[in-house]
């Protein structure tokens, strides 16, 4: 009897493992949902849509397409929480730049709904979002020095817009104004496209937003500087903050795909391979180029390391912002 029970248990376990392995080998067996935490038209949404359009072409994706669901709110946290509410089966993923993802968590302080390294798995990145300081073309400033000088000479608070209350762009905005000792007030919008519209209408004096959001609006918007240690390859003529004398803004937001913790190893491998494949596709590069976004591949390990570094860099800044609010 004891033997029979062992046999039955063994067969059941083997069957379950086999079924599981078969299921994984079939991944994905249905379309994949990619959540985006911002409204349509901004940098994250644009990247996610371009990426999703090529998902079915990746050999590891079995021809399965991906579709985008926008769930804006709380600087992307609403969508992140929605991802965590789903099964960790690889059919609901989350795309966001790690800078904004981390800023959103840090801004919540002790009320944070999750801790990214524990709640999510970084599956790899296919692009980066580069923050820029933008002004309306009617503004006299053509570089950071002139902008700072004009702002100080005005003797008033500078009103600036950004894509959310606690995004990477917002964090960089705070660093910039505080570094230069310029009084300022931030106006959060639901996504980069709405912040851009506010700058076009001259309802705000500046915007900290993706370099890509200037595309098509060159008659209305002028970028003065970009973040990052090096110039954005998609805007090689735009000098960095560092080149113009502003330190502490030498990071960019890697645009990564995340899954909830507990996602199967096989899914991580397949999605990681898909990211590498898509980032190298000519069509994807052309699409990203049209949107002034660079396409390049960062594997999961390197992306996770960059993520850890950004927690160290942005942590104190965001804590100060919260303390001063």
């Amino acid at each position: 009897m004891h033997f029979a029970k062992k046999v039955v248990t063994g067969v059941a376990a083997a069957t379950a493992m086999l079924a599981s392995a078969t299921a994984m080998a079939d991944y994905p067996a249905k379309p994949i949902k990619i959540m985006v935490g911002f409204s349509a038209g901004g940098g994250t949404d644009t990247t996610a849509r371009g990426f999703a359009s090529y998902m079915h072409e990746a050999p590891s994706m079995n021809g399965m397409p991906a579709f985008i669901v926008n769930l804006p709110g709380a600087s992307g946290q609403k969508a992140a929480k929605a991802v965590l509410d789903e099964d960790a089966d690889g059919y609901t993923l989350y795309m966001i730049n790690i800078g904004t993802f981390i800023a959103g968590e840090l801004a919540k302080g002790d009320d944070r709904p999750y801790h990214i390294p524990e709640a999510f798995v970084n599956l790899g990145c296919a692009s980066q979002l580069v923050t820029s300081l933008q002004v309306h073309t009617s503004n006299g400033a053509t570089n950071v020095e002139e902008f700072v000088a004009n702002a100080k000479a005005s003797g008033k608070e500078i009103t600036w817009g950004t894509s959310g209350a606690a995004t990477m762009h917002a964090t960089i905005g705070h660093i910039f104004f505080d570094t230069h000792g310029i009084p300022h007030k931030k106006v959060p919008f639901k996504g980069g496209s709405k912040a851009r519209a506010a700058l076009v209408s001259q309802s705000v004096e500046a915007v900290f937003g993706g370099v890509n959001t200037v595309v098509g609006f060159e008659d209305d918007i002028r970028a003065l500087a970009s973040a990052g240690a090096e110039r954005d390859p998609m805007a090689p003529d735009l000098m960095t903050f560092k080149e113009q004398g502003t330190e502490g803004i030498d990071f960019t937001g890697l645009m990564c795909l995340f899954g909830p913790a507990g996602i199967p190893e096989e899914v991580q491998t397949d999605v990681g391979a898909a990211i590498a494949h898509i980032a190298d596709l000519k069509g994807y590069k052309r699409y990203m180029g049209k949107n002034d976004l660079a396409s390049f591949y960062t594997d999961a390990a390197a992306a996770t390391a960059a993520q850890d570094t950004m927690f160290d860099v942005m942590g104190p800044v965001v804590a100060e912002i919260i303390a001063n609010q």
Partner: protein
Amino acid sequence: MQNQCAGLEEAFESLGFLSIFFDISCGFVILFNDPFAIMFVVLAAFVGIVFGALPGLTAAAAIAMMLPILIAYNDEIGGLAGLAFLYVIGKSGRYGGSIAAILFNTPGTAASAATMQDGYPMTQSGKAGKALKTATVASVYGDYFGEIVLIFGAVWIAAFTRQFGPPENFAIYLMAFVVIGSVVSDSIIKGIISTLFGAVIGLIGEDIITGQFKMTMGIDELESGMALVPLLIGVFVISEVIIQAEKAAKVKMTEMARDKMDDPTAHYFTWGEFKRCIPLMFRSSIYGSLIGMMPGLGSSVACFVAYGEEKRKSKKKDEWGTGIVEGIAAPESANNAVSGPSMIPLLTLGIPGSTIAAVLIGMFLVNGLQPGPTIFASEPPLFMGGQLISPREFIFGIFAAGLIGIACYALIGYFAAPFIGRAIALLPTQYLYPFIFMTALAASYSSRASIWDVGFALLFGVIGYAMRRTNFSAAAFIIAFVLTSSMEEAFRQSMIISDKGFLVFTSFEYQGKFSYAPIFLMIGAAVVLFRAWTSYRARKTDAT
């Protein structure tokens, strides 16, 4: 796709044509390169007519039930096909309502209520064919008129509204609220209550600035706010099913007085009648287009305004209501002329001008388009159907779909309206409405796979039923619900921008630039005062 249009651009440039002609030509190129979109336009023309002709059901109900499917399969069918489908249903649904109004003396939609005045008497006198053909011609005339207003007006207005910031946006939302509240319903008080109720429901969810949740009652599903689909299904579909169940009787098509059909022109809308109606249809189309541009005012207002105005202008006032073609042509051209212009506030400001436009916002967002002043900007491109197309090209693709859609429902309506009417009359309502009820519940569930949404749909079905029985405006409720979140966002942003507190809305300047906000507030106040004055005058006249 851009390259195909680039060839066109060169041709138009060499001819020195206006860019708008290039835009619409490009829209046709994009539409005809998408077989799914063409197929869905034709399908929408038919579906809209049928839903519009079913007593009680409206284009909004059809859209509410189909929206979850279109969103779920958006990538498979393509964004253009989905949006074109909904847009054309809105047009053909308005027309379809006239079939029920003319044949059954029951307005298929509120937009056809005025059509009954002369349409049904014509049916009773054996001229149903003439009445239906008049409705078709007038609807098509009005719809094309409105579409042209949209095509030529939207880009121009969007260029102007690019100057608007949060204070102007808030003022426009507030203006829309008071206009909707005071005009859309028979009673100002009921209209305002309907609007406020929609606003309260719209406030549920996350605070836009702080990220805190409000009025969620601890229900996780409400953290993202109340979903539009179950709300629409409840208010427009389930409430109608309840009303039909209450009636417990079949709507029977009126027996056409065939013995009276010895008049050879009884089936036709003659050339002489058409010529007689042209000035009237032109004026009615202007009324419809102007009303369509006002957020919240829809086809039902337009049809009564046109009917009333044309009757007032007529030299034969006594004949109105007895069954004359003018009595059909005026309301039908006006209610369809609303369709195109009602997209203008949506595209140029991000504010829906009608319930159908409110639903279209969701479809635009699903496809990566943010309705608002910058929507016509040429970049960034959208990735659709393996091609890169600009938002401007995409929008003009929708306009082209509208133009084709009108032609489709014109053909279907002109030749098949009597058959559709007869078929609807034969439908066993004891099976039809339970089927619609089950489909509505499935659609509620499938939008987010949430059983809560089914509950919400049922709840709002009961609420919608109560609203309809007591003459509270469902349209005002839905539009206010859609507008509230953006209005709150604009208000909070204005307060941050402002150094003057609430005075930012009444001052003609903020951030060193001219502000249009006080102008919109004055327009809103003027509309309310005018409405109050006309109500007072009407009551006084009644009393005497």
